[in-house]
């Protein structure tokens, strides 16, 4: 009797201690999560703060006349004439008509500097789409130069940055602003164009397409190979020195710095097999090498987590090993495998170093359309833009990061969703 009372008080005493330890532990967890979330929040605020401007661009409204003589074109359907046409003259004339009092070569050059030097080509595209406009005049919004864009945005925000503008240009912009002839508009170029030396004309379409092509190839190659390897190693391979050796090496490969895979790809695919540089094929092959260990390891873990009782049940029913794997193990392991694959893909999407080694770092203006077109990928584009001196590329860089993060978030969310969905079936 006495002893049990004694025990009870002992338990009570230790209980307060245990409860306190548990509370401490919970607090540690909460603090850790808070720190993590805060870091993410800081990152997002910084990037969005810097990058949101890139989704808008400055446009100037001018009266342009598509004058046949000025363009030096007679027939719009003749490609040679189109090539030789004096497209730049149209916006220049429009500017001169707007600011009639400008004289002197330097001032004229500054005046022309208000518009992007791609403005003429935009007009060409417009004229080709609407041939009836030839020899007519219209009032149209034209893309401004990146310095003007930077100045106008900073001026709107209240802290004008005019270091790269002359006093006259500032005055002209003031005038345009008063007349409502300058404004911010959705920057469609960002999503429809490839890279450019001119920040206002640079877009991420090329990099997005490059990433897409590369990733599609990576997925097509690495998922089947990885899953087959995992199934074979888990279910069929004898357990001996060789398989142990292979397992150790797969784990090692997962930890090899990615740039090594780039060197490997350079040596094997480019130098030995003569695959062209800078193309999504070689990028996909290198990223496949890199993603395979991840997929194999996660798939093996998923296969291992299938309860042995299910295997016994299947074998006991007279299923062959292959049937056991196909009918029972694979469906149960699939959510885990897919999650692994998507995580591997997300890793591959963010990978830069190995692609630098195989030449996907080149300056590529054209949007790639196939696996054999020279291409770059999103993270490399970010790297390139971050490296550019023009101030306007700062917001472009952040905008590209936002796009990359959006893709990553979509992929990771779909991984979670897919797993939930497939697991909910039973």
């Amino acid at each position: 009797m006495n002893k049990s009372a004694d025990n009870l008080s002992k338990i009570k005493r230790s209980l307060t201690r245990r409860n306190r330890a548990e509370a401490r532990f919970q607090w540690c967890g909460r603090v850790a999560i808070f720190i993590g979330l805060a870091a993410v929040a800081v990152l997002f605020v910084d990037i969005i703060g810097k990058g949101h401007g890139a989704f808008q661009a400055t446009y100037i409204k001018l009266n342009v006349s598509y004058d046949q003589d000025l363009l030096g074109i007679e027939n719009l359907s003749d490609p040679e004439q189109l090539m030789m046409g004096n497209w730049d003259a149209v916006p220049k004339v429009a500017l001169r008509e707007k600011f009639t009092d400008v004289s002197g070569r330097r001032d004229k050059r500054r005046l022309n500097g208000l518009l992007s030097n791609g403005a003429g080509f935009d007009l060409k595209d417009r004229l080709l789409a609407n041939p009836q406009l030839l020899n007519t005049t219209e009032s149209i919004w034209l893309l401004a130069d990146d310095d003007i864009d930077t100045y106008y945005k900073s001026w709107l925000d209240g802290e004008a940055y005019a270091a790269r503008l002359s006093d006259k240009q500032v005055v002209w912009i003031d005038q345009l602003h008063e007349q409502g002839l300058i404004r911010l508009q959705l920057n469609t170029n960002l999503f429809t164009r490839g890279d450019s030396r001119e920040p206002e004309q640079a877009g991420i379409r090329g990099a997005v397409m490059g990433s897409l092509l590369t990733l599609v190839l990576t997925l097509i190659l690495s998922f089947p190979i990885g899953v087959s390897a995992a199934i074979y190693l888990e279910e069929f391979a004898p357990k001996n020195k060789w398989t142990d050796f292979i397992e150790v090496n797969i784990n090692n490969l997962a930890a090899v710095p990615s740039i090594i895979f780039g060197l490997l790809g350079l040596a094997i695919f480019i130098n030995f097999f003569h695959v062209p540089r800078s193309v999504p094929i070689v990028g996909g092959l290198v990223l496949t090498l890199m993603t395979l260990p991840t997929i194999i390891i996660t798939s093996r873990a998923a296969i291992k987590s299938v309860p042995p009782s299910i295997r016994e049940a299947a074998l006991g029913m007279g299923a062959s090993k292959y049937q056991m794997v196909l009918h029972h193990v694979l469906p149960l392991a699939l959510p885990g495998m897919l999650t692994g694959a998507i995580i591997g893909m997300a890793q591959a999407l963010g990978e830069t170093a190995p692609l630098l080694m195989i030449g996907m770092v080149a300056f590529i203006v054209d949007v790639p359309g196939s696996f054999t077109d020279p291409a770059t990928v999103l993270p490399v584009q970010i790297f390139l833009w971050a490296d550019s001196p023009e101030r306007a590329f700062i917001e472009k860089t952040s905008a590209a990061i936002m796009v990359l993060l959006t893709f990553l978030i979509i992929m990771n969310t779909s991984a979670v969703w897919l797993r939930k969905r497939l697991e909910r079936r039973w």
Partner: protein
Amino acid sequence: MSPADTAKPAKAASKAASKSAPKKVAKAKSAVPKVKKTEPKAKKAVAKTRKAVAPQFKAGQSLDIDDHQITVGKSFSDNAKMTMRNIDVYYGDKQAIHNVSIDIAKNEVMAMIGPSGCGKSTFLRTLNRMNDTVEGCRVEGDICMDGENLYAPKLDVVELRARVGMVFQKPNPFPKSIYENVAYGPKIHGLADSRVDLDEIVENSLRKASLWEEVKERLHQPGTGLSGGQQQRLCIARAIAVSPEVILMDEPCSALDPIATAKIEELIEELSENFTIAIVTHSMQQAARVSHRTAYFHLGKLIEVNPTEQVFTMPEHQLTEAYITGRFG
């Protein structure tokens, strides 16, 4: 296994037994007085009884088994379905089964009893070569079914396991629908010619496993959503759906309540009309109620095989007696 447990359901035993062959009634009745001796009072007395008995037992005779021990009783049959001769099973270097020879007769229910870890499951699993799936497990000796060597190199285990079905200790339905669970065997072995055929097989199997009435409304819901007892009956239905010749059951009722247990025992009796059954059990009443012969294993050796009635009334070997009277195990 406590002695209290041993004697209590004696009535139920005789009731269950009375359903089958009349010879079993006599067996069950005669089992009653013998077992009752060990339980003069209520459960509390059990501990005392054991303590009192154990030293006396030790003083009387040795519990050591002699290495060259041969099985006592009637381990062979003229009408054998399965014959096993000189079976040794090793897990790596460790020998789990020592030189076991036994026959299982056609349409017989053979019960295997013995203390935990004595090798009942291991022995049972040699009969459909489930031990092949265990890393490092080695089986030596001859096992034949209808005269055909099960361990012959050219024998296909897939065919063997279709002929020798198994029900595991823990219910392990596939995470698929009830229907799919039962239909799986017939499907992979191509036993059904049409959808209608398959439906019929599924219904019949579920009926035989006395599960049909409970699940006919929800055949397409997950089998894992059933209760433990229902799951076990589902596993039995799954096993009999391929009409095996032999059914192996490893403690099929260990996770079930008395009512579900009774249902499965009834089922075993019915099944024994068509199938040969080997059942491992920890419940001696169960062995007494359902089996024709009982084999007693001890430390990997087969000590005694005799008609169930005899094992529970006048065991030949003192180890068997010690076990069934609850003196150890």
